[in-house]
């Protein structure tokens, strides 16, 4: 029940906000706050209920949604299927927290609040849906639907070039979804649902009577071509998609069949398609250029959500779909993929060093930090995968904090250029303290979460049988570059004698460089404490991920 509530409460909230008269402008943010608070409570409950010792999905909810006999093409079946495991649950909790912070950050917004909060809640529901959906079709639905509110949130409430940025974001992600869609259909045609097929073939009376023996028998029948194709129930159920024995013998994505398309085995091509689809989201160099534009133009809360949560869907997609459905592809191209991860780390870091806009600098630092996620996943080691999930959570917390920090300054002066400020320490001491904390946490200071994520992804890379040692050695340059761009920014903007480029007080901007107000502290301090807590007790995350990841890795240990 919890997972459905996580999805549908915000969706319902979105509808309620949309239906209320626009004159209720102040009330909308309270509704959003209440709903996101409920989300945090629900996610917290899921965290507590979750049994960390068992493998497989938990809190499962399944309902038949669409069943369609297609004659010779078999039976089409789409389920409403949600559940969490150690990979998705940390991200669900993270999303709940970041969405709550996002509402607090949106508090001063006065412009078209009804539409804003309605879209914001829609976004919340679809993000949750994305992380808990276990039916590929359902996942894709949420994945696509997420684009809509995001597009408008950037396009309507963004900066001067918001139209360009939002269209770019939209098209880029749409291109990715197109590739994912193709593979999804291919998978659908290639895979059967052994449980429902057993029922359809008359082996058992109802699904609850199906045992593993029956499944194995059925799979054997199918591989021998003894099943009538009209009786085969095709499925989007991710649990079946990730099991090679469920692939039809003549299906073009069958691991054994290997037809060649465009000079590549079909499965390899399919792997690249989903990889690119999710790599756009993460983003991985060279598919990243939508990110700086989207961030620069997006309003602060949307940047927070974008960096804090949306990017993680890329990493989640790698683990849940690309690597899990196509382990052969992931293993085959490990070196290239590792190279892309290292490229993102170093390239993102160097680009961050060259930026003159604070927000862009942080956007590129995200590219660099997400490179660690890819490196960890590619390593296919316990350290690397656990580290990658941890890094996603850590980056969610820290990037949210960093974008809020940019927002604080932007609210006051409407100027984000690094060289417009010197010696901010004197007029804004508390702001400076929190910035120093956020920067040091992000550059990997032990005691904060950033360190743990980088440490274990790099360690995974180094222990990996799939990656050469020099590759990870180059990746460690990323932590030097991280220190360089963060400390250089600190030194230029916050230290030295105070000077600020003269700015015109605009509508909605505070005309003086006042220190943090209560609301800003309310957002930044909890995030800082979370980064500290996770950094000192990393098992808060690893407890969740350990068992799932160990099971997940079994697939790759055969070779």
């Amino acid at each position: 029940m919890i997972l459905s509530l996580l999805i549908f409460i915000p969706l319902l909230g979105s509808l309620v906000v949309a239906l209320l008269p626009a004159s209720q402008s102040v009330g909308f943010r309270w509704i959003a706050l209440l709903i996101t608070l409920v989300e945090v409570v629900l996610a917290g409950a899921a965290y507590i209920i979750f049994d960390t010792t068992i493998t497989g999905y938990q809190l499962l909810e399944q309902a038949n949604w669409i069943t369609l006999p297609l004659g010779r093409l078999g039976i089409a079946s789409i389920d409403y299927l949600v559940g969490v495991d150690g990979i998705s649950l940390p991200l669900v909790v993270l999303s709940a927290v970041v969405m709550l912070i996002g509402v607090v950050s949106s508090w001063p917004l006065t412009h078209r609040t009804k539409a804003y909060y309605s879209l914001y809640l829609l976004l919340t529901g679809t993000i949750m849906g994305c992380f808990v959906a276990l039916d590929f079709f359902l996942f894709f639905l949420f994945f696509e639907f997420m684009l809509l509110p995001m597009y408008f949130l950037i396009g309507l409430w963004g900066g001067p070039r918001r139209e360009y940025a939002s269209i770019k974001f939209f098209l880029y992600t749409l291109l990715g979804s197109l590739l994912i869609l193709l593979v999804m259909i291919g998978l659908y045609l290639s895979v059967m649902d052994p449980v429902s097929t057993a029922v359809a073939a008359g082996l058992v009376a109802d699904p609850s009577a199906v045992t593993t023996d029956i499944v194995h028998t059925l799979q054997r029948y199918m591989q021998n071509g003894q099943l009538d194709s009209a009786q085969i129930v095709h499925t989007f159920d991710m649990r079946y998609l990730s099991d090679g024995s469920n692939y039809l013998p003549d299906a073009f994505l069958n691991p054994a069949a290997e037809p060649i398309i465009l000079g590549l085995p079909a499965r390899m091509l399919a792997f690249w398609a989903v990889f690119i689809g999710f790599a756009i989201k993460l983003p991985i160099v060279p598919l990243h250029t939508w990110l700086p534009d989207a961030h620069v133009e997006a309003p602060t809360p949307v940047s927070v959500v974008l960096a804090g949560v949306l990017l993680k869907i890329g990493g989640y997609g790698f683990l849940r779909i690309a690597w899990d459905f196509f382990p052969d592809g992931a293993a085959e191209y490990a070196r290239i993929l590792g190279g892309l991860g290292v490229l993102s780390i170093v390239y993102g870091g160097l680009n961050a060093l060259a930026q003159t806009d604070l927000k862009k600098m942080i956007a590129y630092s995200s590219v660099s930090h997400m490179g660690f996620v890819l490196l960890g996943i590619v390593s296919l080691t316990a350290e690397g995968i656990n580290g990658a999930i941890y890094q996603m959570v850590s980056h969610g917390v820290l990037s949210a904090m960093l974008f809020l920090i940019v927002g604080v300054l932007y609210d006051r002066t409407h100027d984000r250029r690094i060289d417009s400020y010197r010696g901010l320490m004197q007029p804004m001491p508390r702001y400076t303290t929190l910035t120093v904390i956020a920067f040091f946490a992000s550059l990997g200071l032990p005691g904060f979460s950033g360190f743990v994520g980088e440490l274990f992804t790099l360690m995974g890379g180094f222990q990996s049988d799939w990656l050469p040692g020099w590759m990870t050695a180059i990746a460690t340059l990323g932590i030097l570059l991280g220190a360089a761009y963060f400390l250089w920014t600190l030194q230029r903007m916050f230290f030295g004698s105070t000077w600020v480029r003269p700015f015109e007080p605009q509508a909605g901007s505070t005309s003086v460089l006042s220190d943090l107000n209560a609301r800003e502290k309310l957002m930044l301090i909890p995030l800082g404490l979370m980064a500290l807590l996770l950094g000192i007790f990393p098992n808060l995350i690893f407890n969740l991920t350990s068992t799932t990841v160990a099971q997940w890795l079994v697939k790759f240990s055969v070779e």
Partner: protein
Amino acid sequence: MGIFAANSERLRMPVATPQLLHLLTIVLPALPFAGFLALAVASRRIAGILAIALTGIGLILSIGLALSLSKQPITLLANWAILSGVSFPISLRVDALAAMMLILVHFVALLVQIYSISYLHDEPKLRRYFAYLQLFIGSMLGIVMAGNLLVMYAFWELVGLASYLLIGFYAERQAASKAAMKAFLMNRVGDIGFLLGIFLTYYYFHTLDFEILSLKGASAIAPTVLGLCLFMGCVGKSAQFPLLTWLPDAMEGPTPVSALLHAATMVAAGIFLLARIHPLLSPDALVVIALIGTITAVWGGYSALFQMDIKKVLAFSTVSQLGLMVAAMGTGNVSGAMFHLLTHAFFKAGLFLSVGAVIHAVHTQDMRHMGGLRKTLSTTFIGYTICSAALAGLPFLSGFLSKEVILGEAFAWASDQRSKLAYFVPVLLLLSSGLTALYMARQWRLIFFGDYRNKDIPLTQAHEPDWFMRGPVILLAIFSIGLWFSINPLSAHGSWFFQILPITEEASFWWLAPISIGLVLVGGWVGFRMPEPHTNSVFVQISISYGFLDVVYKYIVISPTHRLASLLSRADRRVIDGLVNGAGISTVVLAHLTRVVDRLGVDGLVNGIAWLAGRLGRMTRSVQNGQVQSYITAAVVGLLLVLWWIL
């Protein structure tokens, strides 16, 4: 925080139960961190007292801990991260080496803080100052007590943070904030090596625990690259060649901080690391370490020769002495290096604190504006003289003893090497100790002898500081006397120190003491009588700019990195983003072409697409170049629908 596993033998002192010792082990590093937090809320008036009390308690506790230590080290283990069954624990470990460092760190830190009460009396950010100091002490204690490489690395980085905060304490000064950044980044360069070394260690030995590593390291020789990677951490923290240029800049911090940083914390960490990982260093790695140490000893010594800044002379003397310690490690002489670390900590802290008193009196760091201060600052003069004589290595003082141990072992090591070239190491080390005498004598003369040369502040205004500042200097000078360490004034063999940390082979050469005493006397004489050379001279320039290292870095590392970064940034916008935009535009062009073809050709399909485009066009009408973009959208969505239909 998990279950503490423990093992320790029966203890000598009946008072201290194992439980109590374990408690102490946790409390010791926790105290300063608690102090760091407490100082954030404490009132300014009690800040100094609180800090001193905490460090004082820590000193007493660590002495107690050291006295009740048995042969078996105290170890504590706690879960930290378990990833799919792979465990990375937090572990603390106190053995004789650690216990000695604990006392040293606490003792020097206590004196520095007492001194600071007076030295920074008018500082508005006093609370913050003491809080940072506590963080510094706590992190250093963490390094000392670390039971595995990961814990050491964690505290290692925290020492980096604390030094960043303290060097940049006067952050409103541009130079201070730059120096802080430089220190952190240069240390990071070394830390990358350290981290890679940790990964390599884990790869080869599947553990990071010092206890197990020293057993495994003894049975199998670790790859040279592993040792050298770990050594890079030391190169950064202990300011070895070529990463030594952050240390002189670090003088931007308050002077008492320099005393702490150069004596017991920070730079000592690198030496301590080498002592811990010594079993993992292959013979080849040791040779490299000996060479780097020797180069650093000479480089630092020469750079100290012609500095005019009173603190920079001391900074480079630290570099030089650290080079000596590292070279000792390279020649396999762990105890000798640690012994020099201990003796050096006292007299170097004493030197910095006396120099602080001089700066306090004359309000300048430029030695050209000093002179003739021996009467006015008589206590400081005595303290400084004893400490600098100890540093130079005069007999009866502690520095002489530890240098003899290092040089003796170095000659013994060289005679064991296959190549006679190995003698370069001990010979250069011997020369560098002659250099030490030279620059210290020069500084002694410039500060305390000759005529008073400061025109801004008359000599009558310069006065001795109060006893908060004089006391620590005197105490440190007393501890620089050789008698504390060895009854025999000319040899440290048989010292209590080597009872605790036994030396592997005892090497003593009858000719070594006379030669080194002779060198020190000659160096001291030259330094005292030498006229100041013209600053335009190449030799002076090389010394003052420490071999133009910073210039080299600027042109071969920093500028190219910035150039590469801005090049990539341009490429990112023009090439990668250009391709993206180009793809967008060509799609639009293609869409237009299609439309033209369609208008002329098949009508039915046109209507369909036009309808779609119209719908989407309306959706995105507000868009700036909506016309163009909507076609792409239409095209993609259309394609999607078509595909959906077909499949």
